[in-house]
């Protein structure tokens, strides 16, 4: 589904990703962990197509297509969804309006008919229920005045609405208390299936207690320095990252 090969990317001339490679198959959940500044969020931004980042070499293929050639909105149409670490506020634009525009834009890209008002409403109700989202939030402006937890839950809700193939969760656990974390994780688990893949970017092992990954990778200085199963996350929790940093430097 996703194949990243020797990816190098820079921001303002500074190279952050230095030969990052990863393959994600349908239905897999990959956790990417690593210390601050290792390039986790850069990876998310580059995959989503944020303009500030420059890909200097390497390739990314998504469902057999060259992801790096696509505009960000096309990537979304292809089924890539990024749950933002810091969801953006759009004052004056209601969630309903925003989402309906998004859902129908993505449907159009996929060659589907736009949803009628009734069908959209029905879908929204269903997904809201699924992610346990307060009804009131959809009437408010996009992320405006939302608490940290509400913002993150809202990201998951949008994910459910847009029916993506690959989801990147960028530090979705940051700023969440344990209850909110559980709600978000439950929603993600409900959306897991054999076709949909996830890349879970996180600093802490905590989230992985709830969203259990198939693979865990440690990112350090712009590339993966260690990969393993879910037990690797526990090991990291116990030992920290320093032993890997030393190891990486030694390689």
């Amino acid at each position, binding site marked *: 589904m996703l194949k990243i090969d020797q990816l190098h990317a820079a921001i303002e001339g500074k190279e952050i990703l230095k030969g990052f490679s990863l393959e994600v198959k349908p239905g897999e959940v990959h956790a990417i962990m690593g210390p601050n500044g290792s390039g986790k969020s850069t990876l998310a931004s580059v995959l*989503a*197509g*944020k*303009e500030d980042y420059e890909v200097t070499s390497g390739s990314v293929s998504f469902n057999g297509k060259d992801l790096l050639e696509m*505009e*960000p*909105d096309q*990537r*979304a*149409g292809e089924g890539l*969804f*990024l749950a*933002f670490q810091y*969801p*953006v*506020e*759009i*004052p*004056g*634009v*209601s969630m*309903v*309006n*925003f*989402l*309906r*525009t*998004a859902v*129908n*834009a*993505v449907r159009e*890209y996929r060659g589907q008919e*736009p949803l*009628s*008002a*009734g069908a*959209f*409403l029905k879908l929204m109700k269903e997904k809201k229920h699924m992610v346990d989202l307060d009804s009131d939030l959809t*009437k408010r*402006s*996009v992320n405006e005045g939302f608490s940290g937890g509400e913002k993150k839950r809202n990201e998951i809700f*949008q994910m459910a609405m*847009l029916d993506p193939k690959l989801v990147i969760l960028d530090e979705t656990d940051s700023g969440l208390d344990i209850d909110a974390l559980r709600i978000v994780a439950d929603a993600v688990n409900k959306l897991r299936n054999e076709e949909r893949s996830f890349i879970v970017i996180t600093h802490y092992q905590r989230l992985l207690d709830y969203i259990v990954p198939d693979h865990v990778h440690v990112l350090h200085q712009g590339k993966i320095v260690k990969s393993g199963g879910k037990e690797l996350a526990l090991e990291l929790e116990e030992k920290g990252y320093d032993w890997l940093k030393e190891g990486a430097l030694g390689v």
Partner: protein
Amino acid sequence: MAEEKLLEAISEDEKIIQEVTGQKYKYGFVTDIESDKAPKGLNEDIIRMISAKKQEPEFMLEYRLRAFKHWQKMKEPNWAHVQYPPIDFQDIHYYAAPKQKPQLNSLDEVDPELLKTFEKLGIPLQEQKMLAGVAVDAVVDSVSIKTTYKEKLAEKGIIFCSFSEALQEHPELVRKYMGTVVPHTDNFYAALNAAVFTDGSFVYIPEGVRCPMELSTYFRINEQNTGQFERTLIVAEAGSYVSYPEGCTAPQRDENQLHAAVVELVAMDNAEIKYSTVQNWYPGDPETGKGGIYNFVTKRGICKGRNSKISWTQVETGSAITWKYPSVILKGDNSEGEFYSVAVTNGRQQADTGTKMIHIGKNTRSVIISKGISAGKSQNSYRGLVRMMKGAENARNFSQCDSMLIGNQCGAHTFPYIEVGNPTAKVEHEATTSKIGEDQIFYCNQRGIDTEKAVGLIVNGYCREVLNQLPMEFAVEAQKLLSISLEGSVG
């Protein structure tokens, strides 16, 4: 269910956004109607001719001639933050009327070309009007072709007719109020208008009557080189209410077209007038600015009575040059003035627009919400005056002027003037300037929304406070205009 309603409105939004993607100025066409036109130039004879054509009462001709004499002594204002080549006032036709019999019994009698024009503009002249609950007084090149709903309004004693008709049928009312809010000596363009105005609308709401529908006029400039000089007068007697939406589009032209309208509003005790404008005149070529409309308008209302209220709402996306300051004179105690404005400039457009709130009475209140959006190589200025006169005990004003910049070749300017002559009066002014957020656009992109649509969404959100003030069907049109006018401005 509220949510369902919301959705209906949204699906409407969306249709619109889809509809407008990739469109150039949609209304750039010219209708071929034979036209009865005065020779170019301006002198007493032309004014006499206009007055005679319209079979006006003697006082009107005298008024025009007085205004003309005064105008000849005046100079064109040059303090606005706009630039344009000098206008040759002798190179303009001051009168043009479609060759039509003015009295028509049904639409079948209307020139089919004209009907086609209405259709292209989407003016709901027929059945849609009833559904929409809008009575339309359509003005094509200075002559009113058809006025609707008149009988229904007449039952309530409401007068809604063309200015020419008002001069025939209600000369005493016109004489009593015309020029009392914007005198013919007020400014260069108001004087010119007073001398040569050809038509417009007249509204009279009798005491205690709440006008049961939106009273709407569509303006259209349709004849090459014809200056359009509209004149509107709305009088709301004690305890009455009226909402008056005004919308306009003009065909694409190569020569600049001058538009100098005058609008006067009079609100008596406890009366309320809500005046909304959506303006979409041809803004000129996006690269050169050539061919756009010059919009030099004087709009002013007076809250003459106690507890009266006048509210101006405008969404301005068109015209090459805009020079416009809808104002309120708050004379009656406890009276209230509002100004809600969205001004969008793109390409080479220049706008100098704002308001004046003149507080005379006690406990008078005013609110100014101005949202300026500049894109392309345009210049967008807010210019506003808040004046608290000596007697304005406890008067209050709140002003909020926000500017949004799209791209880095445009300009946004704010010129607030505050004069406080009473120590108990309070004036608050807030101003912000922001660039359209790249993060916001990226967020929309990531959800599958392309940049063009994203800008439309974000800008509509930014203007929400103002759009909310518009009558429903107008709000939809306004959103459409915002998206159209910013096409191609990002990326």
